[in-house]
């Protein structure tokens, strides 16, 4: 197990260079630069333009800029935003809990609804229930997030008026940020109305972001279950006369979960990228919203730093997921 972890950790080095190089190259490939972004329709005296480029460190050849950037990153310095001039790491830390909160609930939603739906579809194979689950999940999977999100807002918030349109909490609540997680902060502040407001603000973004993972989880659970249900040990369990639910949940589902766990691990990356769209539409003050704005304003340090941090988190989560296999499935040994 230790050797497995060490080997995986060693892989982080090339991944780090790959991610930083990719982020650096991509943002520099986008036309325009931060100085152009300042001037807009206004002309800019070439001398002043040169001075600003120098000040932002953008007047040097790209390889030099990249090397300097890596040097700073290795010393733990992700730089400053070119628009707010605040530290990238601090901005990320302020906004990341909002993204985690949203992604957590989206995943929870996907699992709580997706697992039973997948099991139901497998057990009732080729019935109306199966077709319904598969049809809905295929639709969900194919739905563009921004469109689905707007549809949710228009129906639940504008037509029915039962959910708020956007944001994390109603504006009348000014809850001090302790953990950055709104649900926890509102409870720490002892304000139940604020908690309820925060919870109601989570509903639509959770559904919008959780729909695709939900579809993936239910389809994966269904196919894994179908396979496991054909296995001898399931037949043996049935033959023993165990109750049907026990065979399905304890014998079949536990084994079917292995591929599902893998897929769920991969969803973390998808959740974070899906969060970019979801956050933009729901004005959710998380890192996705922040990254989009960074790209629009050519805020190089924000985009590079943000991508690097998110990539690091995705790698870490996947490592944990790989280690979890051993727990879920004793047959896999990381020797």
């Amino acid at each position: 197990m230790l050797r497995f972890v060490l080997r995986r950790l060693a892989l982080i080095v090339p991944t780090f260079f790959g991610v930083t190089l990719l982020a650096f190259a991509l943002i520099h490939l986008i036309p325009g630069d931060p100085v152009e972004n300042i001037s807009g329709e206004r002309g800019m005296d070439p001398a002043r333009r040169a001075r600003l480029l120098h000040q932002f460190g953008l007047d040097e050849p790209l390889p030099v800029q990249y090397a300097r950037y890596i040097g700073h990153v290795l010393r733990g310095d992700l730089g400053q935003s070119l628009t707010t001039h605040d530290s990238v790491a601090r901005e990320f830390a302020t906004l990341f809990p909002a993204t985690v909160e949203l992604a957590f609930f989206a995943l929870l939603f996907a699992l709580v609804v997706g697992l039973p739906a997948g099991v139901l579809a497998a057990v009732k194979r080729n019935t109306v229930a199966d077709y319904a689950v598969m049809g809905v999940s295929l639709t969900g999977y194919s739905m563009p997030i921004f469109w689905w999100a707007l549809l949710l807002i228009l129906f639940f918030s504008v037509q029915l008026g039962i959910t708020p349109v956007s944001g994390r909490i109603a504006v009348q609540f000014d809850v001090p940020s302790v953990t950055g997680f709104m649900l926890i902060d509102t409870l720490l502040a002892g304000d139940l109305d604020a908690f309820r407001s925060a919870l109601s603000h989570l509903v639509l973004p959770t559904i919008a972001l959780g729909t695709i993972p939900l579809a993936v989880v239910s389809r994966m659970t269904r196919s894994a279950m179908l396979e496991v249900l054909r296995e001898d040990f399931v037949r043996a369990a049935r033959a023993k006369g165990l109750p049907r639910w026990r065979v399905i949940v304890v014998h079949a589902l536990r084994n079917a979960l292995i591929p599902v766990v893998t897929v769920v691990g991969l969803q973390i990356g998808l959740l974070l990228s899906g969060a970019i769209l979801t956050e933009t539409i729901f004005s959710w003050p998380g890192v996705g919203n922040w990254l989009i704005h960074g790209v629009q304003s050519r805020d190089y340090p924000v985009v590079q730093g943000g991508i690097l941090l998110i990539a690091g988190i995705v790698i870490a989560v996947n490592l944990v997921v790989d280690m979890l296999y051993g727990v879920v499935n004793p047959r896999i040994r990381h020797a």
Partner: protein
Amino acid sequence: MIKRTNRRAVTFAVMALSALTAASVAAKGTLVYCSEGSPEGFQPQFFSTGTTFDAVSVPMFNRLVQFEIGTTNIVPALAESWTVAPDGKAYTFKLRKGVAFHSNANFKPTRDFDADDVLFSWNRMADESQPFHKLTAGQTFAYFDDMGMKNIVDRVEKIDDYTVRFVLKRPEAPFLADMAMDFASILSKEYFDTMMKKGTPNAADVYPIGTGPFQFVSYQKDATIRYKAFDKYWGGRPKIDNLIYSITRDATARYAKLKTGECQVMAFPKPADLDAMRSDPQLAIQRKEGLNIGYIAFNVEKKPFDDKRVRQALNHATNKDAILKAVYQGNGQAAKNPIPPILWGYNAAIHDYAYDPAKAKELLAQAGYPNGFDVDLWYLPVTRPYNPDGKRMAELIQADWAKVGVRAKLITYEWAEYRKRSKTGEQTVMMFGWSGDNGDPDNFFVPLLGCEAVKGGGNVSRWCNKPFEDLVIKAAQTPKQADRAKLYEQAQVIVHDEAPWIPIAHSVRFDALRKEVHGYTMDATAHHYFDKVELAAP
């Protein structure tokens, strides 16, 4: 549910309920504004975007002079009156007495606003040796630089505690309008000195202290900005108690929040939503003629546009009415001059080039292009305040020009790239536009058509005309507005005849609000002011 809970929980629920009622009573004086983005920071001198001005300089700061809301007339603010030296090279401001600064947890002002604050605020931008000039690493005084203030103002002198004099390097009539702009906001010298003594000088740029109608309360990045009314505001305490900016980048979400009452005023409604908004009995739409111009610029350094007959020909060949209908959908007015008619100095007597393809063909033949020519037409890749749909406009122009034999190929680039290329003079014909900063005609003519602006790239037609240049320079150095207006009127005759552009349209701006909002007036320079707003009981 309540039946099964114990007594304490019931008491708690009742308390929570009464807290909720109390909150909604207190919230009556709270206006929520759905703004379009986060401010870059809370310092009025560093930044140059409207979003930041709306969040910083507008609610929390004042200038020596200000624009009367809804117009570009300059009226007293922190200066009660001013005089201009006969040679136009010195402006003496008499300052208002009894103007209080805000306070916060780290700072309680011991004195009112005076001349020291004016000198401090100005020198912080102008004087590189001033200790606060380089306080925040990486920050520049962008707008101050953009407006070329270093070449205009020589120094600021304190005559006495309530009199300051700005000594200019040259006569510059637009100077007064410049002083009403956001970057000229007045900071508290005492605040910066106090924070310096406490060892946290940077905090003064993060937690703003101004003299404006609202005080800063808190900011949650990308989510909300909170302000409260400043009781001691010299212009009279605002009628609302609290002002909250609910940052909502998506225009559709802003509209939805306006409908559900999650905010009462929204920034920048989508033109496509206007009709639906008008038919909603809960909403009111305000409109304001924009301080802007959308235009097509010919690069006069390139053939065949070095010949003014060709430029005039294409002016005749372009059907502006059709563009206004199809692109602006009634939310714009046809342009015949570089400045909009709401600006003083507008030459109403100019006769626009009539849509006349036959005349256009004749002019092209005279210029030696009887069979027309091929040309690249650059069009805007994004929606801008002065042009809602660049592509559609380009298609219409392409069809118009085809009728006179000019075969336009439509080209565009990513927006930042588009601007970057335009500044190098790569374009032959391009679509562009401008939104005015300060309501002075100088702010259109000089940055867009002046000879200096060819170098900086703001003059995308790269047209540099001596008689025109002489007129606008003379106008800038002439003190009286009526005299200046005459010079600008003459300058417009030259622009019309020389035709470096096809002026297309001045667009109309809209704000959407809920019916319970009273006393809101749209501002001419596209800022959003809330100090005169009242909320009726819904």
